[in-house]
Every structure is written in C-alpha cells, then in structure tokens.
C-alpha cells in the first residue's frame, strides 16, 4: 500500500523538537511580540506557520477575565483549510488545568475538548516532550489531532465535524501501537524489542463521494534507549475508514535490523 508522505507533517515534527528543547526563550519572544501588538490585530506574528491568532470564547460573565482570550493559544497551523476551525491549547497560566479544544472561530464557539486517553496529558505551552499537530481534510470536516507524550504520540484523535458540531471523536493511538508491535514477536523476547518510540511521518486524507479515509504513516524503532543489543526499525502504514470506523489496510515494514549498532 502506498501512502503519500505529507512533508508538512514531517517539518512540523522537526520544529516541534526544537520547540521542546529551546522553547522558553523562543516562546517568550513570541509572547512579548504578541503583547507589543495592538490588541485588535488579527495575526500577531508574520506568516510563520506558528503564528498565533486571536480567539475569544463564548460570552463571558461581565467583569471576569476571558480564559479563552488570555490563557489559550490558537496557532495558525492548526486551522482548517477554510480557516473556520482550529485547535487551542492552554498557556502556562492554565497548564494542566484546561483541556485542548476544537474551536469555531467564525462563531466564537468552543466545539469540544479533544478527548485524549487516560495516559495522555492535554498539550500545553512549554510542555516537556509535548507537541500538538493537526491535519485537516480538504473539506474541513475532519482532522487528525496528534498530542505527543515522551517517545510517541499519546493520542491520535480523529475528529469529525458535522453541521458545525463535533459528531465523533476516535482515538487511534492504542490501535496503532498494537498494530505496530509485531516487531516484538519477530525478535528477542525482551520487552525492549517493542516499538517503543515512533512518530507520525505522513498523513493524507482521501475523500471520495462514497468514503472518507485517513492514510497514516509512522516510523519507529524498538531500541531508542539503547538498552538492548538489537535494534529493529520499521514503518507502519495504514488506512482508517471513517464510515467503517476501522483500519481497512495496515502494513508493517522492516527498514533495518541491527545488532550493537552495526
């Protein structure tokens, strides 16, 4: 099965890594830049993919600060193709206290929290090993939201939007992990041969009149911590059918198998 690699996704991944390591000064610089701009300005940074946009939440109680305006960030690279929808995440002010949300910019509406699995903390600003990537379908009616934890995506949530509301959310991360793990059966019995580190390297939406499918490609390895003498590296490619609500194609391919780093 061929999955076209989404270079945008790959580039975002690299940038995210940089943000994790050097995040404080860079994000602080962005924050100061945001503060120094007039409040009504729509886009605070330049055309950079990580530019932040204004978002005001639903009507707030008079005299109270609006948490969505002052404690959440809407990044331009989370917007849907029609720019109506986006994904917001908390600033440090609400770190760990607020979920990530899918929002409707046109109507200042908060459509719903991104439903992450129990082992995943919603992404927030400056989060260690954290990351947030969003891949929208061309019709702006579905998105894959990746929220990272250490070593791998913590949640891979498919959001489906219908009539301006979230119709369904499905977290694919458990299934991807299970399907990617045959590598562990092929080699030694050590738990270190599980695919313990992987990242999403490509995402593509395929829309037809009859179906809506998400093609996803991941790259991973078994020995990222260098504990075992064996290292298996491979790729996982799969197609998720939104109507059938299951993977209709999956393929795990070994790209290398080495011993002691050879």
């Amino acid at each position, binding site marked *: 099965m061929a999955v076209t690699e989404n270079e945008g996704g790959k580039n975002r991944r690299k940038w995210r890594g940089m943000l994790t390591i050097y995040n404080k000064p860079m994000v602080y610089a962005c924050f100061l830049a945001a*503060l120094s701009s007039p409040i009504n300005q729509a886009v605070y940074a330049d055309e950079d993919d990580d530019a932040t946009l204004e978002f005001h939440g639903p009507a707030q109680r*008079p005299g109270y600060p609006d948490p969505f305006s*002052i404690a959440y960030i809407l990044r331009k690279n989370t917007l849907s193709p029609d720019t109506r929808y986006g994904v917001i995440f908390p600033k*440090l002010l609400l*770190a760990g*206290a607020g979920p990530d949300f899918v929002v409707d910019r046109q109507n200042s509406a908060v459509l719903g929290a991104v439903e992450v699995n129990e082992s995943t903390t919603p992404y927030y600003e400056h989060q260690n090993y954290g990351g947030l990537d969003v891949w929208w379908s061309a019709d702006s009616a579905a998105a894959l939201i990746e929220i990272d934890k250490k070593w791998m995506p913590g949640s891979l949530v498919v959001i489906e939007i219908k009539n301006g509301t979230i119709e369904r959310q499905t977290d694919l991360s458990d299934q991807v992990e299970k399907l990617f793990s045959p590598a562990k059966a092929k080699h030694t019995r050590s738990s270190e041969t599980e695919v313990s580190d992987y990242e999403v390297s490509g995402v593509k939406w395929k829309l037809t009149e009859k179906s809506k499918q998400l093609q996803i490609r991941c790259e991973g390895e078994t020995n990222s911590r260098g504990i075992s003498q064996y290292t298996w590296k491979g790729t996982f490619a799969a197609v998720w059918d939104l109507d059938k609500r299951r993977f209709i194609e999956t393929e795990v391919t070994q790209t290398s198998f080495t011993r002691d780093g050879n």
Partner: protein
Amino acid sequence: MKTFICVVTGVLVSATASVAAKDTSIKLTTAPSGEYAVGWASSEHVLWIASTKDGTDLGDIKLSHLADMEEGSEFIPLPFISPDSNWIFVPSRHAEVDPTLELEALLLHQVPSKKPPFELVLALEFGRHAWEFLVKELKLKTSELGADARRVFSVHFVDWSEDSGRLLISVGSSVVSSKDTWLEGDPNPFYFCYFNTHSGGFELTERLRLADQVPRAEPGEAVKLTAVVTSAESIGKEGPLRSPEGAFKEADARLNGVYNQLIGKLGPAQQAMLREEQRAWIRSRDNEATIWVLQTWSSDSVADARSLERKAAYTQARIKDLEERLERP
C-alpha cells in the same frame, strides 16, 4: 526551595504609569458598567485600570517584586470586578514557573471623589485578616510560629453576590521558615468566608459555617462537595447550602425517566435517532460544564462542584424539552 517572596511591594500610584507599560500590555477584563478596563503590563509589572472612554489612567498597582520572576514565565494577576463595578478583587497567585513567587490577594474599592479613584482595602494584608477572622470564628487550631517561621496565605476568588454586597473567597494558610522550608504542609485545607462590602469586614453566614464545619478531607482524599460553596448570597437573601451532587443526581434520574418514557413511544427508526441525539446532548452538556468551569476560573473542589451544578441546570432544560415532546400526540 527558592526564596519565597510574599511581601508585595506594590503601591497604588496615580496616573503616572509609563506609556511604554501600556504598549506592552493586555486587557484582562472590562467592568460590567463598561466604564473602565483592567489590564496587565507584564514588562513593567503594572496592573492598570484605565477609562474605556478616553484611556485615562484610573490607578496602577506596581507589583515590583514580580520583576524577580524567571524570564519566560507567564504570571498574570486575574481581576474579578463586582457587578456594580465598584470593587476589584485580585486573588493571590503563584507564578507558574516559580511557584515560590506569590502575589498577595488585593481588594480595590472605587471612591469616585478620590484621585486616583481606586484605593486598596486592608492594604496588603487582606489574606492575613481573612485568615485571622476564620481562626477566631471557627476556632481553628494553628501551630505556634517559631522564631524563623512566617505564615503565608492563599486567597482564592469564588464569587461576587448579585448585589455586590459580598465577596466569596476561600482561604488557606501555611507556614514556612526563613529558609523557605514548608513547616506546615500545603495551604490546605481551605475555608470559605465573605468580605462584606457594606460593613467592610469578614463574615460567615449559616451556609458558610456549615460548609466550613464539614470535616476536612485527609491528604489524598477527595474533598467532600458538601463542604464546597460556589455562589455568594446577596445581603438579606441568605439560603441553605445545597449539594451539587444531589442536584445533579436528582436531575439525571428524572431525565432518565422522561427519556425512557419517550423512547417507549417511538418506532425503531425514531428510537435510533433519539439515541444518537441523546449521545450528542451528553457531549454538549459535558462541554458546557467544562467551559463554565474555565470561565469562572474554578479549580479543585470548586471546579468539581460547579461542573455538577452546570450539568444539573443543563439537564433541567433537557427534561423540559423531552417532556414537551412526550406530551405531543
């Protein structure tokens, strides 16, 4: 532990805050009357109050000790303005990056005849006064302070009463040594009390007294929601404490009854539609509750209680809707 700075050196100054400060600031909220806005100039560490008509400075609070905070942190004082717009309460806060850095709670009162029109109430001792009141009223046991120890206070905002007569806060206290070692645990448990804007003093009503007397949760144990108050009583409109858990369970049970009656009247196709609609409604209810908790800046047990209250109210509206559909022929 890093040096714990709790002495706010801020002073209320007249309309002399630098223009530069305003240039690097964000507006935090606007008074219900629309007359003024409150904002935060992060680079100057100034909480400013300015007229929305012409931008005139109405008073600034310079929180100069916050200049010590670690670069890259995002410390924002949060103002909550009373419905009559005459009072601004800023709860105590810990800086996110450096939790040892604390802003004392501030209460500002608007006195139009003065210039600047806002003045600090109880100076920078609001938290201490509130805690001492609670210790006396509730006969709380507190440990003696050693020579090198000092007491710090946490004051959370809960609600303004509709008549602006009462500010509902929750207050906690802990003890630290001069070497910033915690001697008396976290600033838990919290107790509720009012600041009465008419009398200028702290007070407890029957509702608060009952909540404060519920045995406090042990460390690691969930706070009993019967010990949580989420709404301030207007003066002369005091009422009993109602359990948010009870209200939600009652509404939920009633909704289930009406839903089952309705689904029993429908054919298979309509039943499937109603089930789908109900699933969507539950998502919407939970989303509304999450948004409400954030909009009221609630945390911990107050957040849990407010979430249940919102869900109960949302459920009542759904019951009404389904009952109307049930009555249709």
